[in-house]
């Protein structure tokens, strides 16, 4: 187990290094650079800027300097916000994205398992049909539509009652978090519901369930210990990447609900060709994703003793 963990961690480091290098190369191959601006009306001003950011050096040297700083945990200074360090941007904004993401994942996982089990128990009857219809809606309607509609719904709700029941946008209190996290988790919840349903259906009449029933175990025990526990494994598998995807993919929800998360920096940096922020956020998110996948693999062993990690 220990050896396996170490091996996975080393693989993870190599993956992150690969992500960093690939991003570096891709970023420098697109036309333009973060210093392009309409107000640079002479060469001196441009040369001053290049010298300040070290862009006047050969690309390979820039790469070595960047990698050296990165291994020391220093992502450099943003190009668009010239007095903010990328480390500060991540430190200030990732907790917001993470809070939103964790809430969304909890909501998605609980909802998904619950609805999934329910549809399996009611297979092909009305609750199953209704829920699966909603699930298909949840999977196919993109989050910017759901976000926009739910925000519009909030304004109508507040107008109806004449007072502000739930805030339309913004961040900071419990009330601000509810709707955005529900919207963010909706897609994943729908996906997990389907997954849970099919995996529950496989198990619901499995041999070991029949055996358990025939030896007179109470139905509660059968459901919790034999059915749910076995059916939940595929859900755990996708949960790791889902956490990473939700935490990093909140850009649209953050935009609509004016939430100061890291997502907008991730997207805007690419539009602005802000080299240091692109590198910082990509490497950070990449490392986060790799870490989550490793974590899920390790958690397997605890949930299903049949999975012995070698």
């Amino acid at each position, binding site marked *: 187990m220990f050896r396996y963990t170490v091996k996975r961690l080393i693989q993870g480091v190599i993956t992150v290094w690969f992500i960093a290098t690939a991003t570096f190369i891709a970023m420098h191959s697109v036309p333009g650079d973060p210093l392009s601006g309409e107000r640079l009306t*002479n060469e001196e001003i441009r040369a001053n800027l290049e010298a300040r950011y070290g862009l006047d050096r050969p690309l390979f040297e820039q790469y070595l300097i960047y990698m050296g700083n990165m291994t020391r945990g220093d992502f450099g200074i943003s190009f668009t916000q010239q*007095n903010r360090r990328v480390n500060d941007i991540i430190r200030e904004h990732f907790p917001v994205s993470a809070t939103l993401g964790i809430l969304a994942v909890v909501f998605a996982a609980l909802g998904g398992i619950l609805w999934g089990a329910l549809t399996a128990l009611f297979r092909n009857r009305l609750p199953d049909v209704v829920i699966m219809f909603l699930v298909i809606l949840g999977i196919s309607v993109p989050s910017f539509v759901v976000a926009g509609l739910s925000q519009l719904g909030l304004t109508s709700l507040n107008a109806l009652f004449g007072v502000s029941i739930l805030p339309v946008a913004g961040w900071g209190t419990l009330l601000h978090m509810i709707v955005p996290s529900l919207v963010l988790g909706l897609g994943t919840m729908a996906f997990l519901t389907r997954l849970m349903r099919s995996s529950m259906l496989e198990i619901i009449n499995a041999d070991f369930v029949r055996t358990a029933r025939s030896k007179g175990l109470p139905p509660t025990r059968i459901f919790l210990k034999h059915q749910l526990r076995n059916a939940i494994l595929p859900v755990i598998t996708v949960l790791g990447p889902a956490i990473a995807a939700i935490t990093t993919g909140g850009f649209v929800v953050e935009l609509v609900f*004016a939430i100061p998360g890291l997502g907008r920096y991730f997207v805007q940096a690419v539009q602005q060709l802000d080299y240091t922020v692109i590198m910082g956020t990509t490497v950070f998110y990449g490392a986060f994703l790799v870490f989550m996948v490793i974590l899920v693999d390790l958690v397997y062993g605890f949930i299903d003793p049949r999975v012995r990690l070698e």
Partner: protein
Amino acid sequence: MAQDQSSGMTADSPGTAATRDPLSRVALRQIALLAIAATVGFVLLMAALSWASDLTSSSTTSVGAIDVETGTITLSLTQEPPQLDSTRLTDSVSGMILGHVMEGLLRYDINNQLAPGVAERWDIRTDGATFWLREEARWSDGEPVTAHDFVFAWQTAVDPATASQYAFIFYVFKNAEAINRGELPREALGARAVSDLELEIEFERPVAYFDKLVAFQTYYPIREDFYLSRDGRYAADAVDLLYNGPFEITVWVHGAHVRLEKNEHYWNRDEISLNVIDFPYITADGNAALNLYRDGQIAVVNGLGAESLDQVLAERWPVRRYSDGSVWFFQINHREEHPTSNYNLRKALQLVNDPGELVYKVIQIPGYTPGESLFPTWLNGQNGLFRQEYPAPTVTPNVALAREHLEQAKRELGVDEIPPIVLLADDTPGASKQAEYYQNRLMQTLGLDIRIDKQIFRQRLAKAEAGEFDLALYGWGPDFDDPLTFGDLFASWNLNNHGEYANAELDAQVRIAQESTDQATRMAAFGRIQEILIEDVAIIPNYERGVLYIQDPRLRGVGRRVVGPDPDYSRAHIVAD
């Protein structure tokens, strides 16, 4: 909404579950229990997370769009201000914020006329200028604003180590360009504090519009001891700035919240009516801003697009408009290897261009006006508006004549068909729509094959600089209120002249406009530049941009400007309804 549904369903399900299978009945009870536990857990988790997030950000507490009692207005920003260091600032959001918290020697008043700021009076000569500062001007820590603060800020801006993009705006100062090139020390700058209240400036060359330059944001003062004490973090946070304007920043949570409160040390504080200007929402999403307005959370929504206009009209909110001062046109590539270097082809393009159709049928946003010149209609001339003194040459769309020019161009270029024309455009929805309109228009009228090259802003700029285009949709906004801010764009040495248009007569006229101090001579030069650009088809004007916005009727006296901080809430006031 989904949460409501889920709790509703699970509460009902044990009752409605008249199931035949005893197993599922028990299982349902289990699920109901699980659901209750999950809901409780979810709420607890939210509470914990909200407590944790308090450590990293301040909360958005809502007082509504306008609070009469406390004199507070609430607004939203489209983005976090990227740069509040006046020497490095380039974008409009930062410029708007800084315009409320800083004041230069001169400022623009609510009617967009120059008014005294920190300077009480001034004298501008051909070789230099003198400014006398008002004694009562104070920084937000109570210290007086002195001439040294301006000298320090300006030296910092031209210092090559600062690498300011706007360093060029100081090039009228003696030695500024040499300092910026690193050839002279920053102390050599032609600006000197004679005393605490007297500022002496030496020019490199005569400059007729210096009073207008002085109102520009890069000319704001910075106090040396404070700047140095921040150790490279000047303007990085609210506490890393010192203010001399009508407001000061009291809260700046990056990406989330900016709050301006009245600066009690401001010399003209009696003129300021608002106590707080709060920006607790930062989002680029126009619909989100509209929803906030609908919910009574913000007082102004700026820059309504054609889609949101319908919603706004349906709500019967009065729509206001103003011109943002920018002019949009085709940059044309005049390099020899490009077909557009041929005069007759350019003439053909000019003759089929119909700015009226573009503005009224394609863009369809009131406030946009058809473009006729590089010089926008709002520019001041010698006595009145420049465009009234020097009307732009009229070009009437004429497809038949355009086709004749096209045939001529084909003969001159020695081709049967004009090769595909590359049209470089931004990747914004608006630019895409315009590019597609032109693609269709030029195909139908001239049979030209237009290839649209959509790029994000910086890549579009890089491609334009490299000359990788034939036509480019391009806009230019003013830096100061003088025709020169547009007039020198197509001088052969200007780096924004991406098509490398070179015309000796135009260059000569630009020099006259730059160096003469006689307004009549200068305006005549701009008039000639305007003619050359149209006659020689150096560019093809498309439109002047307008901005639509809605504003809470209780909020009055908001300044809208083409030059300087926009919108300007500093002199606004609230009327009770």
